[in-house]
């Protein structure tokens, strides 16, 4: 392989776009050619500098609203409740008990939806302007004590940088009228907000994925706490984040 060929192909190597055969050829050349090797390191450095800098733009809230307004309106939550009520009025064969439980389920869903809506707007707010973090550090031992006295729980903070999720810091936020802890992570160029709040003891519901306004939200409860991870990363990556977070939490020995 010549220098001229390597000069082009090292970019494909950098981008993980080379098949194994070509990757071996390029790497063999890079080992024997200090100049091409230096090129690769320089470009890798530049790529890392670019991914570390915040080069992306956040769409203004006004644009998001303008687009939302042009979309046909989403099914309203109220209408789902109304249709259930209409079922009662129409004199279905539902037993009173079943009807009551259904009604509670509908109300519970509305409550869930309100919390999710709060989580979503807190996330969107955090992306606007300069209020992503109140305490900005990648040191988990700085973030954790920062929450002392600010929220009535001790949120677990784990560093997942080695697993591809960089800890950016922490923030105080409000969800469902309560102060909650938000631990902020970054996946490549995407922000993940992890909201931690006091768990509702009775629930203990399992992991659940929701989508709201296009954001993916994973919620689960553990150790008496309730967690909401929200981001615009795809559902698989958000799941990966939750898995890594849980794994790190357990290996940290439930401190």
């Amino acid at each position: 392989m010549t220098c001229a060929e390597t000069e082009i192909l090292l970019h494909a190597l950098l981008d993980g776009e080379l098949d194994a055969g070509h990757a071996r050829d390029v790497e063999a050349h890079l080992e024997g050619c200090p100049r091409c090797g230096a090129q690769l390191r320089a470009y890798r450095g530049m790529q890392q500098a670019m991914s570390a800098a915040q080069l992306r733009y956040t769409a203004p809230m006004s644009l998001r609203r303008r687009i939302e307004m042009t979309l046909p309106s989403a099914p309203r939550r109220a209408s789902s409740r109304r249709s259930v009520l209409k079922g009662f009025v129409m004199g279905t064969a539902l037993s009173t008990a079943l009807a009551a439980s259904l009604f509670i389920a509908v109300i519970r869903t509305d409550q869930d939806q309100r919390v999710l809506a709060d989580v979503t707007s807190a996330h969107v707010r955090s992306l606007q302007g300069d209020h992503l973090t109140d305490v900005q550090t990648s040191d988990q031992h700085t973030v954790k004590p920062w929450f002392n006295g600010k929220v009535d729980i001790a949120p677990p903070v784990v560093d997942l940088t080695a697993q591809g999720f960089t800890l950016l810091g922490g923030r105080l936020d409000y969800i469902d009228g309560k102060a909650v802890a938000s631990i902020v992570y970054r996946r490549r160029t995407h922000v993940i907000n992890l909201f931690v709040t006091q768990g509702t003891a009775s629930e203990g519901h399992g992991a659940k994925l929701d989508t709201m306004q296009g954001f993916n939200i994973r919620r689960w409860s553990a150790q008496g706490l309730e967690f909401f991870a929200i981001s615009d990363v795809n559902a698989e990556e958000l799941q990966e984040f939750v898995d890594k977070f849980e794994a790190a939490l357990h290996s940290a020995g439930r401190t």
Partner: protein
Amino acid sequence: MMAGNGGDAHQDKARRFRDATLPHLNDAYTLARYLLHDAADAEDAVQECYLRALRYFDTFRGTEIKPWLFAILRNICRGEFARRSRVTLAMDDTTDDAEDAAPLWQEKHASPETEILRQRDAETIRRLVAELPAPFREAIVLRELNDLSYSEIADVVGVPIGTVMSRLARARSMLRKAWIAEEGLPT
């Protein structure tokens, strides 16, 4: 009954569209900002993109919505907004030929062997990227900022994968030179 079903199908489509496209709003806006330079134009282009995307959503057959959405956005940016924009966008593919006149590998005689580039703040890097000629700027924005694969970039831009690779190589080479030139200046 019929009307009700039609409404459901309509709402279902809107919901699917929303869930599929809105997570990419920041990415789309970022691409438009780099292609058009102007914040207000970028907003208009993105809104137009979402309108068109909704109209053609039924024709979307792929698995990845982002390249499909970006192809629509890029066409809009190249079309009316490029004409409207005060900045003349050299979107012509002929730029490639002119640039190709000098083989890439000869450049390293000219450029210093600075392996470690000095850290630059986001504002400076944004400006350096924004100053790249259009075909190279869009290649680097699609790859580094929007995380698209070569084949996805090829789909968006409508060129072969080989061209994507050579444009990226060229784009990074130009960016690195500009970056190093910047270092001669006081911070």
